[in-house]
Structures are given as structure tokens and as C-alpha cells.
């Protein structure tokens, strides 16, 4: 009985390690390749480079445009921060309404919420492009940030609803007896209880916006306003034969750092948050 358990565990570790290496090796290779010459990149599968020449990162930081990567980081944060604030504000209000109140057409709106989650993004994007175009708002960050103010992310709302259901309604009632109104109940009683899920929403917004590609590609046209993802694409496109491959690889590594840092810092909260909400990446 005990021997069988040990065998099972050993097999588990072996399989996990094999799968884990497959998951991580491409990233190790990427970091290593940022120090390699073109020849070395395509001749060696081993990730450790011959020598560490850090100057490639200085060149990568300068990008292929007149702006540095710092500029594009700031652009990206200029999209992320309003998005976070807007998403939290609109999702919390909407979830509060659904979780704590009865109102006409509640079922209808709730099914609408579920439907909006299954609506293919690609169907939305073109009419939205034309809508923003007619308002003259293309090539600004408004198409990328304003939808967050309208509870555009159904999964966030669902996640908060689930958390709110875990907060006893007696809390609200006690607060009301003490004289709190609807908004005060939300701010003084409920929001302190759902801080973890608010953090999860912020982290998700951060990571998704860092990765986001299609929307900025379509909405933003001037290089000065590009977020990080588009500048990587621009650089990847301008690499021809004989181009220094490690420079674009180094840019990718720099581009991955913020996401990995945020994920590493928030890992525990994050994973438990998603499993609670059934969210996907």
C-alpha cells in the first residue's frame, strides 16, 4: 500500500518536471537568445549563451523608433490605469445592484450579462471601430479605456457577485439600522469585504492590457501613441535578413518583465481569485 503511494508520487514528480520544463524552457531560451549572435541562435538548442553582452539591452531600450521603451511603457500604463479604475467602479456598482436588490427585468439583464460574455470579440470590434471613427476618437486611448466604465467585462461582474453572496446580508441590515444609506453600505461595509476580488480585477486588467493586441492595432495608428505590444510588432516587422535578431528578442524580454513581476508578486491571491470566478486568460 505504502510502496504504491511512493511510486505514484515519484511518477507524479517525474511527469510534472517533464511538463514543467516544456512550459519554462522556451522562456529561458528567449532570455539566453537575447545575448546570442544570429548564428548561435540558430545552431544551439542550449539556452546559456557564450558570453553575456549586456549592451544589447541598451540598444533594445532605444527601439527602432525615435522613442525609447520607457515612452511605450508610459503609454501602456496610460491605458492600464484608467481601465483599472473604470473597471472596478462599474463592475462593483453593477454587481452590487445584482447581488443585493430586486428590480424590474432583473432576470433579463442577468441573461444579457451572461450573453455578453459569450459574444465573440471579433463581431464587436468592427462596428466599434466605425462608431469611434464617426466620433473622431480613433487614434486616442478613449476607445480602449471608456468601455471599461460601462462594465464591459462580464466576468468581473460575475466574480464580484459571487464574493458579495458570501457576505451575510445581516451586515447590510445592521448598517442600515445605524443609518447608512445604499451607497454608504457599499463603501463602508461591502467594499472592505471584497478587497481581494478587487485586487484580482486590477491584476487581470493589468495583464490583459499588457497582452492586448487586436484592439490597439485597429484603434491606434500613430507610432507615438503605440502601446508596448504594437511597438514589439513594429520592430518584429522591420527585422529583415542580416538584422540583429537579439535586439528584438531583448525587446520582448523587456516587454515580459512587468507581467511576470506583477504575476509573481500577486500569485497567491490571483490564482485563488480566478478559481473563485471561473475566469480564463
Amino acid at each position: 500500500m505504502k510502496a504504491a503511494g511512493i511510486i505514484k508520487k515519484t511518477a507524479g514528480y517525474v511527469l510534472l518536471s517533464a511538463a514543467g520544463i516544456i512550459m519554462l524552457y522556451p522562456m529561458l531560451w528567449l532570455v539566453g537568445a537575447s545575448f546570442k549572435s544570429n548564428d548561435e541562435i540558430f545552431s544551439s538548442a542550449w539556452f546559456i549563451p557564450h558570453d553575456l553582452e549586456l549592451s544589447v539591452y541598451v540598444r533594445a531600450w532605444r527601439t527602432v523608433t525615435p522613442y525609447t521603451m520607457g515612452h511605450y511603457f508610459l503609454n501602456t500604463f496610460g491605458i492600464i490605469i484608467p481601465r483599472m479604475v473604470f473597471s472596478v467602479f462599474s463592475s462593483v456598482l453593477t454587481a452590487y445592484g445584482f447581488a443585493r436588490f430586486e428590480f424590474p427585468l432583473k432576470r433579463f439583464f442577468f441573461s444579457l450579462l451572461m450573453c455578453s460574455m459569450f459574444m465573440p470579440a471579433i463581431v464587436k470590434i468592427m462596428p466599434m471601430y466605425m462608431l469611434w471613427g464617426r466620433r473622431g476618437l480613433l487614434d486616442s486611448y478613449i476607445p480602449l479605456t471608456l468601455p471599461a466604465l460601462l462594465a464591459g467585462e462580464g466576468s468581473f461582474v460575475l466574480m464580484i457577485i459571487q464574493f458579495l453572496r458570501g457576505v451575510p446580508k445581516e451586515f447590510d441590515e445592521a448598517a442600515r439600522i445605524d443609518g447608512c444609506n445604499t451607497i454608504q453600505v457599499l463603501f463602508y461595509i461591502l467594499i472592505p469585504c471584497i478587497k481581494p476580488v478587487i485586487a484580482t480585477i486590477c491584476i487581470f486588467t493589468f495583464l490583459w492590457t499588457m497582452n492586448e493586441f487586436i484592439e490597439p492595432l485597429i484603434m491606434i495608428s500613430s507610432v507615438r501613441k503605440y502601446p508596448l505590444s504594437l511597438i514589439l510588432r513594429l520592430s518584429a516587422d522591420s527585422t529583415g535578413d542580416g538584422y540583429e535578431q537579439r535586439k528584438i528578442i531583448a525587446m520582448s524580454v523587456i516587454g515580459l518583465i512587468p507581467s511576470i513581476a506583477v504575476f509573481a508578486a500577486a500569485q497567491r491571491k490571483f490564482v485563488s481569485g480566478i478559481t473563485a470566478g471561473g475566469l480564463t486568460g
Partner: protein
Amino acid sequence: MKSNIKYTNPVGVSRYTGLLLILPFIIGSLVLTMYPFAASFIFGMTDSRSGEMVFTGLGNYRSLLSDPDFIDSALVTLKYAAILVPLKLAVSLFIALLLSIELRGIGVWRTIFYIPSILGSGLAVMIMWQFLFTSGGLVNQLLVLCGLSPVSWYGDSRYSIYIIVLLRLWESGSAMLIFLNALKGIPREYYEAAKVDGCGNIRGFFRITLPLIRNAVFLNLVLQTISALQEFSAPYMLTGGGPMKSTYTVGMLIYNEMFRFGDTGYANAVSWGLFVVITAAVAVLFRLTGRLSEEI
């Protein structure tokens, strides 16, 4: 999510308070869901190639069915989904099963498997992937190490789709988490009881595990099918739809019609067609799995 419990509003709260609170969502569903839904159907009935919008009725929708470009890209997309979705479910369930064994440091492992999904469809990952599959790239070097002949991933229309399939498989983390969460909900006593009755690991998996996590299987099936049918960014970045349109998905077709050929009307018609296909796929999945779970 069933709301069987009828909440009543607190004393003195109007029945419209809730409506007021969800106002951002109501405006949002008008602007972000209903408007695009209706608009893309209507734009799909126009032709703006000449510079001004001309109403053409159902012309675009009719030509969809006879347009070889659309039929080919639909077949590519279906083939891609048919390869990817079962593989992704299998891989993520396998990893979730491994992670559900009680081992030390399980949090670290869970993080390792989730990282690729976090970095997900980011451009940096795409660039990395592009390098891995070049003719002298890591994947071919590994094939040679294993004594196999290298493959021209970008040049051979038989293999090009697997560049994208493998990328999405590498990002199985979110599906894995959904499975892991469901597996945690199965009481251990079930397996112990089954063991007493002489039920082995493999039979236990099919008789106990799978039936009990069928909701998670279904959720993953739906989510993965939806995202596979919409695939755009990976072919756009990695293969450009080639070679010989072997990775030219419907998403690529929509983007090209709209932004390269300037055929807004047709692009909208295609994206509406895609929406109908996705809805139909989800409906079929609902029926199929509904029947399956009854049988079990």
C-alpha cells in the same frame, strides 16, 4: 447560475435603486453588445468599396456561401478547432490530474503551468514562438536530437497549423485551473469506496472523476471552442495566414477584407456569419453534452 432565492429590498429602498446601480451595465450592453450586434448585420448589407456606402441587401450574405476564400478559411478554422480543442482539453485535464495528487510545493507547480497563459497572446510570446519554429530554431534542433528530420514549419502547408496549435496548447493554464478547481471538489471517500469495490485507477477516472467534473469539461469545451473559432492574433503574427492559406482563419479573412482590401460591408457580413457559426457550435455543444450527462 440560478437565483432561486428571492431577495427582498431593504425597507425604504425603491425598486428602481437596483436599476440605477446597474446603469453602467445597461448603457454598456446597449453600446457594447446590442449596437455592434445590430450594426454589423446592417453594415453587412452595404458595399463601400466605391468610397460611399451603397445598400446591397443580402448580397454580401449570399456571396458568402459561394466565395471560395470564405469557404476555405471556414474549413481551415474548423480544422484548427477540431485539432486544438480536444488536445487542449486532454492536456489541461492531464496536468490538472497531476497537480491534484498531493505533492510538496504544489503552489509552485501550479504557477509554472499558469505562467504561459498569463503571458498568453502577448506579442513578446509570439516573437519567441516565431523564433522557436524557424528552420534552425529550437524545435527543429530538438527533432534532430531525437533522430528525426527537421520540418519546414513555415513553408509546409501540412505543418504550419501546428505552430499555432502548439502555441495554444502551451497556454493551457486557464483551462487547467478550471479542471483543478473541479477536481478539488470531489470527496476522497468516493475513491476509497471504489477501491474497496475493486475499482482501479483508470476505471476510477472514467467512472468517478469524469462524470463528476462534467460541468468543468463542458465549460472548457465551450470557452475553448469560442476562442478557437475566433483565432486571429496567432496566425496574424506567426504565419500571416500562409503558406498557401493553410492558416488563413476566418479572423484573418475579416481583418484583411476590412483593413487591407477596404471591403467593410463584406467584412461585417463575414463576422456576422462567424457569430452565427459560433452560436450554432455552442448550441450543438449544449445539446450533445446535455444528452451525454443524462446517459451518465
